[in-house]
């Protein structure tokens, strides 16, 4: 791993040997209460502390984190199930792009076990790894200005659920009634980094 500078009260951890979400799950109990943000992303983890004087100690603790104990996955918690109606407007496009039938697209997506890698783009928007290789398609060439809330989508090797109606460039293959992000709920987001996830055809 490399520790890169990000001001006097933060660092960016890079070149990890495991998924950043897994590393962060292993690190959270070891870095101490002075950590106010622990933000995994595609290949890095951002660590922010409350007091610049504590940053060195946190960096030392970060270097000592051993994520291999979590490599088995069972410590990442129970699998979160999302009920889906696979009636999205882009199923046919994905089928055409991948050479699969519409049924095969749906079956492949529903059979996989995913993991929340990180959140970004919007509150509660979770990037899920584990999408079968046969379903890896690029983003749509023309994004939609409005994607219905609860849309289940795929693009660029990830799957995701749009928590609210927003612009979106991913392929919409289904929809869930689940409210992925509710600011009046505690915690507000149903999905957090590290969680295993499955989609269940409704």
């Amino acid at each position: 791993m490399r520790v890169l500078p990000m001001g006097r009260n933060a660092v960016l951890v890079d070149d990890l040997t495991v998924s950043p979400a897994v590393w962060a799950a292993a690190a959270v109990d070891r870095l101490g209460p002075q950590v106010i943000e622990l933000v995994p992303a595609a290949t890095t983890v951002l660590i922010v502390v409350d007091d610049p004087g504590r940053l060195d100690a946190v960096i030392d603790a970060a270097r000592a984190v051993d994520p291999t104990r979590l490599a088995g996955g069972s410590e990442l918690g129970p699998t979160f199930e999302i009920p889906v109606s696979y009636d999205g407007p882009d199923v046919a496009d994905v089928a055409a792009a991948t050479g699969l039938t519409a049924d095969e697209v749906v079956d492949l997506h529903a059979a996989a076990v995913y993991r929340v890698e990180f959140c970004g783009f919007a509150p509660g928007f979770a990037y899920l790894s584990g999408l079968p290789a046969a379903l890896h398609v690029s983003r749509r060439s023309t994004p939609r200005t409005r994607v219905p809330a609860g849309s289940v989508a795929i693009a660029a090797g990830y799957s995701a659920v749009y928590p609210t109606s927003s612009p979106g460039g991913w392929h919409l293959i289904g929809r869930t009634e689940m409210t992925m992000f509710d600011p009046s709920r505690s915690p507000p987001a149903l999905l957090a980094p590290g969680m295993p996830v499955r989609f269940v055809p409704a």
Partner: protein
Amino acid sequence: MIEVVRSGLSTTVQDRGRPGLAAVGVPHSGAVDPQLAAQCNRIVGNPPDAAVLETAGGLQIRAVTAVTVASDLEPVARSLAAGQQLTVPVGGRQWHYLAVRGGIVVEPVLGSRSTDTLSGLGPPPLAEGDRVPVGDEPNDAPSGEVAPVRPSAAEARIGPGPRLDWFAESTLETLRRTPWTVTTTSRVGVRLGGVRLERVRLGELPSEGLVRGAIQVPPDGDPIMMLADHPTTGGYPVVAVVEIADVTIVAQTPVGGIVRFV
């Protein structure tokens, strides 16, 4: 209670924001200049974290009931009788604060009354006709002393960012040598013009975590400093990070103003 007569430029309710939720994609938000907001709160006898109005100027309010207020432009506690009006004009610093004794008490979202202009969380930006509730009298009396207007230091300190190696070797020097002009500014970020920062590493950077004060450089080469409503992750390389205490030097410079880094 106060009523918005004219909402002016970018007027929102702000407090300390929503720290600790970046991992689920919630921006920190909160006052762009938290120290200035706290100062205004102290003058009216509020706790420093009470919600205030933040405005880029042109805000005009009317007291519906008698209130006591203080703004950064005239840092004394002022009593407004019911019906009396007050204006916070454009000018001077970019972001002004109006504290009301008792605090602004709109409904909090995720523990904060801040308007997040990126994600849309929190109350909507203020509009003409809005009636804004004010809380009960706090324990402390309004402060008799006039808080000194902090002189804005000329230069903001910067340190290396995580992707400095994506840029030409002398880039930190270029950042420090160039007089930067603020070209656009918002609660999300401040864009600077002056010199196009040259990348030596091309290609896309997978999105990574950001902090307030981080200076991102999009492909066009114009640096953008992250502010209160910055996205939690971004795919433009961060070349440098502004010292925490100096972020407001940049944030409070209006469009057309000059920023210098050291």
